[in-house]
């Protein structure tokens, strides 16, 4: 996965995406906060959902308990 290193740690961009998710955030909001291209944010959000760190909500994405733990919240 592009968001998770072979040793299980998060990549720099994955951490940035997770930290940019506050309450329910849209891909466009995350792209604006991280300065990453929108296509890359959409791809990362999808992977982070598959990894159980985010969940999809109406209108965007929010951190799961595991996601919060991974970024120290």
């Amino acid at each position: 996965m592009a968001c998770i290193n072979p040793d299980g740690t998060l990549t720099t961009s994955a951490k940035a995406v997770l930290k940019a998710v506050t309450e329910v955030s849209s891909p466009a909001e995350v792209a604006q906060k991280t300065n990453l291209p929108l296509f890359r944010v959409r791809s990362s959000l999808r992977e982070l959902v598959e990894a159980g760190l985010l969940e999809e909500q109406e209108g965007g994405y929010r951190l799961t308990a595991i996601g919060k733990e991974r970024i120290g919240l």
Partner: protein
Amino acid sequence: MSEEMVTTPTLPRLNEPAPDFEAVTTHGVVRLSDFRDSWLILFSHPADFTPVCTTEFIAFAEIYPELQKRGVELLGLSIDSVYSHIAWIRNIQEKMGVKIPFPIIADLDRAVATKYGMVQPGASKTEAVRAVFIIDPKGVLRAMIYYPLTTGRNMQEILRLIDALQTSDKHNVATPANWQPGDKVIVPAPKTVEMVEENLKAGYEVVDWYLCKRRLE
């Protein structure tokens, strides 16, 4: 069904939805839908670590800032592995000082290349030709260019094509041969006698009733 019919490459069609895909790239797994709301240039090259392709990648990287100003993303493709792509772009950066900022599809199973008619057996049975597909923010295929293996693409023409498409969409006009931003544009040809009369009175530069030009504000 004859063998020839089976091997004939399928080609996508202009002004229809671009063929959908999900693909492994140097920036992770991406889907065509990840690019919605942006313009996208999807382009193929024959192979990594080849001379013409290297000059093209450097040229694409050089126009990338101009493309970004126009809301355009770039996505490369070849029938190589992601490890080959990574090794090649690292080599370009180390040896030529150019960072490749856009993702490249590793299309080893030719899934994307087949959908877009990038493998043309008359040119090569194992490599993609130099194809360029311009896809608009709604996912509609708007332009296609196919170049042979021997000829590197012209980046200024690709920029000009993006400018022309965006100008046509914004102002409902067409663009004449060799048009450049700032030049006069062509008013769509009238479809009725009444529209002819109205065009003639509209203050356009009239070459004839079917060819009227105007400057954009």
